[in-house]
């Protein structure tokens, strides 16, 4: 039975008393609990709570300050994205995938388009410039995701400065994204067959201009937190999970690398030409929250190295196509800034409209109905900012997926929550959660 907190009553079904914080003073509840001498208290945390990464519900069983049992409630952000994909074309799937893990949008698109291309059997036909652009965008997305992870973790521990500094650096990346894709987030830039459009004039110059200040900013950020005694007090030895635990729970990403295992799909199963880049896999050997942040912080600087190599490669390559040659697959668009801000390039419209009737019909069919993907299924995994991000696509030969399923690292990593929290204090629950860095948009989809 549910009662108001002022008049709690014993409940046979609940095997205890339920206190409902429906207004008034928390002290009244605490006093009442103390008066009843109840040792075991179950506390509900979330789903609306500033310290959770999104709408996550945690049910904590407490013995004093110590957490004895943690249960995780997910699904508050279930958006039905996988189901919606079955009713949209293969190209539109990119716009839906980007809204899953919205902190590293472009990486979701990357996994999705690579899986679709694998199923269509065109993986080796993707132009080189598109490959480089994909790597560039995915690495920038990784940096921006790690910045949000570190910044919001700092904010949750009471250090708002960490968040403002992290977001300052992230803004540079978002400005570049906006130049290239037209959107700050939810870009839908990577498309099956290539990328939506080539870099606009001046975008690469902008990136080169902000590059030194970003490297400096990331170093500042690292200096500020990694040797910070308060940060260390809150994270060293907190939320430990060793390699065996990570393996048993299927945990990937910075969490497993913090146990010393250099598990990184960019090295182990390269995609989009990652084998041509020079970078290190960052690891730590502490297996705690501190190690996870150390891995993320070092990884950002490794990603900056990859970004520099991408800039060099793009400049060396010069102008080149960014969409697959195959006219049955290639998205027939050439965007340019028109009088209304954006639109099709006039010469491209002329080519479609004043060519043959068949050309116009082909364009119309490809845009409205979409291309077809041969029946079958494919699975492709990439190294997402959060861990191994796998996409399983099934086609029945139509213009829409029969089924799309994502193996979301946030979701799998969140399984570790009870292992990380049990036996710790309630103040470390927030640290444990932040060190997993789950994004609920990805967890619930």
């Amino acid at each position, binding site marked *: 039975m549910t009662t108001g907190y002022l008049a709690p009553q014993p409940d046979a079904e609940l095997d205890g008393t339920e206190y409902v914080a429906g207004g008034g003073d928390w002290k009244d509840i605490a006093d009442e609990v103390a008066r009843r001498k109840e040792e075991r208290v179950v506390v509900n945390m979330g789903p609306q*709570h500033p310290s959770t990464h999104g709408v996550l519900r945690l049910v904590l069983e407490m013995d004093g300050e110590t957490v004895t049992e943690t249960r995780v409630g997910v699904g*508050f*952000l*279930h958006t*039905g994205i996988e189901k*919606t994909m079955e009713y949209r074309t293969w190209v539109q799937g990119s716009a839906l995938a980007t809204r899953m893990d919205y902190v590293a949008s472009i990486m979701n698109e990357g996994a999705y388009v690579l899986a679709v291309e694998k199923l269509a059997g065109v993986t080796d036909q993707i132009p080189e410039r598109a490959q480089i652009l994909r790597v560039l965008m995915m690495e920038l997305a990784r940096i921006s995701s790690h910045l949000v992870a570190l910044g919001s973790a700092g904010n949750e521990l009471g250090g708002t400065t960490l968040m403002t500094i992290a977001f300052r650096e992230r*803004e540079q990346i*978002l400005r570049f994204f906006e130049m290239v894709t037209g959107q700050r987030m*939810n870009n839908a830039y990577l498309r099956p067959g290539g990328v939506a459009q080539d870099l606009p004039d001046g975008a690469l110059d902008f990136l080169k201009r902000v590059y030194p200040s970003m490297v400096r900013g990331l170093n500042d950020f690292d200096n500020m937190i990694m040797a910070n005694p308060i940060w260390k007090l809150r994270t060293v030895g907190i939320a430990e999970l060793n390699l065996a635990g990570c393996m048993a729970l299927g945990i990937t990403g910075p969490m497993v690398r913090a146990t010393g295992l250099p598990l990184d799909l960019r090295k182990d199963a390269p995609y989009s030409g990652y084998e041509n880049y020079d970078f290190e896999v960052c690891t730590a050997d502490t297996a705690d929250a501190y190690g996870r942040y150390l891995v993320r912080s070092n990884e950002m600087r490794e990603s900056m190295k990859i970004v520099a190599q991408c800039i060099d490669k793009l400049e060396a390559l010069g102008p080149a196509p960014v969409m697959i040659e195959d006219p049955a697959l290639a998205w027939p668009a050439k965007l340019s800034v028109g009088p209304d801000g954006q639109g099709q390039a006039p010469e491209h419209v002329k080519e479609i409209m004043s060519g043959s009737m068949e050309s116009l019909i082909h364009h119309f069919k490809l845009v409205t109905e979409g291309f077809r993907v041969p029946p079958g299924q494919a699975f492709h995994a990439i190294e997402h900012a959060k861990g191994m991000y796998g996409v399983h696509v099934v086609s029945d030969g139509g213009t829409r997926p029969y089924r799309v399923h994502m193996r979301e690292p946030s979701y799998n990593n969140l399984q570790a929550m009870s292992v990380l929290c049990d036996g710790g204090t309630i103040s470390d629950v927030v640290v444990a959660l932040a060190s997993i860095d789950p994004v609920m*948009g990805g967890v619930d989809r």
Partner: protein
Amino acid sequence: MAIKDGLEGAAPQGVVLTTVSRVVQHLRAGSTWPVTMGLACCSIEMMASGTGRFDLARFGMEVFRASPRQADLMLINGRMSHKMAPVVRQVYDQMSDPKWVISMGACASSGGIFNNYAVVQGVDHVVPIDIYLPGCPPRPEMLIHAILELDEQIKREPLGKDRAKVAREVEAAALAAVPTSEMKGLLV
């Protein structure tokens, strides 16, 4: 009027009341503290609007409150699932009057691109909305503009009994309105 003498006695009827309401409206508009109701993508842009480049603090509204009791503006940002809807309503109910709501982003305003079984097609099914802010997600500048626009509305809002009267009138008008499903024929 209880005070009949002095300056107020000399002033024409109604001046004092108008001035008080203006003062209250000004104070209300200048201190809108939002409650964090971050649901999805838009909440990241909400966080961004509080940081350096956009700096919501310039307008005195960076104090994001974790407790609905201390907030008077609810920013609903992101897609709201059916599972989350009762929670949003509960947080809204826990806020003390007067309170305002901004629906940030396409999903909160109309369901956005997620026209499916999981997402509530607009949070106005659950709570009354004062400002609909389009975008997927809206830029931080757009969020700041929406809050400033709301402040302008707050400055024009009547006080006390009038506020309740206006709310009742709005509700009656909404109940009497023709539902979209009944709108037939050409759009005029």
